């Protein structure tokens, strides 16, 4: 898989920046705040997430998301995003999850529409609260890179609190995701290899929180964490994972960037044969790195 596409995306985002230092509220990689854009203003983001290491073999996947946001009113922000997947996996097969080695991408993987409703403003009401709803359609399985059709709906409650006049910022998220997926059949799989193509339903509950401190004008350093638990109708809780790590954010007048390292601290549930340690590695990885670059207009 070539890295030219990814680098060209990032370069375009960086080169498009006017010659000024900039700003925004995306202080974290995985948790989100409660603020919305002012009416009539917009932002363009490029998110890149590298997921790597399943404990055996080689596994690297890059999710690239290009998103545009627009403030419809002072309290409602709408956004649309296109996502792309690059994946390189070999040396590990997991029955039902990783059916064959793959080195492909970037490939178009899905579209997402999102609406964020601000209920309470963190600067105005002392405590901020927003409801975020989204609908997504995917054409690729993000874990194996194989073809599938998935419809996903998500709702997130986002809380935010300014402390020390805004020097320290706390956010907390509670999320519920429901997905309906149908995998496409794969030819020439080893005999007995499980790759169900019947429609499946999955629900994920997540909770996350983060703290970010302004260490210098424009620069924020923080830490965030996220717990996610996946459920399937037939087996109940299938897997869970707990990620936590540091994040650094730079924000100026027109451009901002956030970099997060998100290692998996602990996990449980289903494992693959021969797996060591207590992590959820069937679908997740040991490490995630996320770089967000955004531009205000």
């Amino acid at each position: 898989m070539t890295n030219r596409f990814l680098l060209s995306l990032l370069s375009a985002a960086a080169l498009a920046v006017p010659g000024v230092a900039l700003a925004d509220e995306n202080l974290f990689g995985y948790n989100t705040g409660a603020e919305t854009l002012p009416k009539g203003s917009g932002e363009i983001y490029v998110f890149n997430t590298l997921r790597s290491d399943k404990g055996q073999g080689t596994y690297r996947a890059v999710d690239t998301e290009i998103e545009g946001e627009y403030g419809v009113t002072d309290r409602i922000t709408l956004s649309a995003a296109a996502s792309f997947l690059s994946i390189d996996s070999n040396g590990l097969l997991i029955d039902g999850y990783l059916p064959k080695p793959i080195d492909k991408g970037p490939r178009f993987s899905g579209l997402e529409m999102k609406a964020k409703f601000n209920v309470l403003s963190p600067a105005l009401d002392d405590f901020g609260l927003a409801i975020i709803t989204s609908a997504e359609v995917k054409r690729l399985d993000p874990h194996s890179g194989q073809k599938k059709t998935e419809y996903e709906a998500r709702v997130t409650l986002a809380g935010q609190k300014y402390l020390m006049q805004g020097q320290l910022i706390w956010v907390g998220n509670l999320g519920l995701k429901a997905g309906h997926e149908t995998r496409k059949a794969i030819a020439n799989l080893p005999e007995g290899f499980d790759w169900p193509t019947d429609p499946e339903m999955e629900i994920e509950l997540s909770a996350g929180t983060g703290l970010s401190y302004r260490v210098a004008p424009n620069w924020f350093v923080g830490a965030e964490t996220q717990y996610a638990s996946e459920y399937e109708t037939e087996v109940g809780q299938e897997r869970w994972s707990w990620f936590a790590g540091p994040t650094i954010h730079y924000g100026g007048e027109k451009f901002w960037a956030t970099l997060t390292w998100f290692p998996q601290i602990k996990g449980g549930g289903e494992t693959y044969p021969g797996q060591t340690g207590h992590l959820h590695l069937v679908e997740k990885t040991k490490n995630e790195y996320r770089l967000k670059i955004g531009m205000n207009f």
Partner: protein
Amino acid sequence: MAQMKWSHVIALPVLATVSAPVSATEYLSVADAQRVLIPQAQNFVPFTVTLSPAQLAQIKKMSGVPQHNAQPKIWRAMNGKATIGWIIVDEVIGKHEFITYATAISPDGHVLGVEIMSYRESKGGQVRDPKWRNVFRGKSVQDQFKLNKDVPNISGATLSCRNITDGVKRLLVLHALALGRQS
């Protein structure tokens, strides 16, 4: 993929930042702000005061926000030998950068005016609008300073509005505790 050079990816935002000149958003110098706020003053005399821990605690108690600088930047506006007002230059936190502003206070503790000296945020430049700043004129330490009620809010700059509003209230308390008797 194996050859992906992530150092390049990480370096991009840093390079973009380093290569981007800082925007020139210093709207007023101290001297400019002094002349705009109290034009009838003949001169402005620097006034040195060191706030005691008790005064700092009292400022926080009365204004609701801490006074971080025990030696605030203060000038006495003079007309002949008479003190006709005070200029205090202060900083508050904006979304990402500090906002520098000057507040003029009359000897009897009323706001004569507020000037934004520097503002670097991406949104909410309307805090420089005289219509918004004039809301503070005439206010004293006895008045209410609730944002979006006593002082209008500006969408996209709520944190800036809140911190400037709290800042003006804090400076009025500072004046009452440390400057009132000097007038």
